[in-house]
């Protein structure tokens, strides 16, 4: 198996996993489940999806540390902020 086939196969698996996570998110939206742990679960899937898009689709896996820190930092800050705001709203 040459390198390009290997890369394409990995990308296809990532695509399928991204689709599966999206369907999971939709299933959660249609379920009765809600609350902090569900929000944490949703945000964990956001982080995993974001990581794959950043590292493999955007190809920042091969970029310098600064770019990877900026991109992953963005997704962590945004997800963390969303969770903090959600918990503030619980009261």
């Amino acid at each position: 198996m040459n390198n390009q086939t290997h890369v394409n196969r990995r990308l296809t698996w990532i695509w399928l996993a991204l689709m599966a996570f999206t369907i999971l998110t939709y299933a959660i939206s249609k379920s009765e489940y809600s609350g902090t742990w569900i929000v944490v679960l949703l945000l964990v899937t956001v982080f995993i999806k974001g990581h794959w898009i950043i590292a493999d689709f955007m190809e920042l896996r091969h970029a310098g540390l600064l770019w990877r820190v900026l991109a992953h930092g963005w997704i962590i800050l945004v997800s963390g902020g969303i969770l903090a705001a959600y918990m503030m709203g619980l009261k």
Partner: protein
Amino acid sequence: MNSTVKQSEITTKYHLPGDLAIWVFIFAELLVFGIFFLSYAFSRAGNVELFNKYQQTLDTASGAINTLLLITSSYFVVRAVTAIKAGDAQRCVNWLAAAILGGGGFLVIKVMEFADKFSHGISLGTNTFYMFYLSMTFFHFMHVILGMIILAAVLIKARSGGYSAAEHTGVETGASYWHMVDLVWIVLFPLVYVIR
């Protein structure tokens, strides 16, 4: 010899795809979207009942289908990049065309969603939830259009033999922007349509 090998190792290890300028632009966009998302989240914290009530009027299935469309379109774009890296310009063009089609599908579904809301008399002034929903999704919608224009320009150049295995910075530049549009949506969808 040894230093040449080390140099090529460094080049292989650290590679920023596309133009540096697009990355400055991408991070400026991410900053703006990040502020939008956190503004929504913290506004919701002060109006939980209102946000939960009106969130139920959104069509989650449309949002989910649009997520699948953007993810798939992003996958097609990354396949276009690997195709041109292998020197296959025709396959690159085909993948780009498929990606643009995916973006088109996203726009059609989003227009239907907007039309439904407008037909019910909903506007930016209806309430805080709709102000955020309409402005954030419309702002993103405009980025999908811009991304499609960029991909179309890359496609036209690729079709006329403008890119090769050795020189394909333009393809990577367009691809990076399109992935940013996808990245933003995978946060927007659960935030606005699902979290309650």
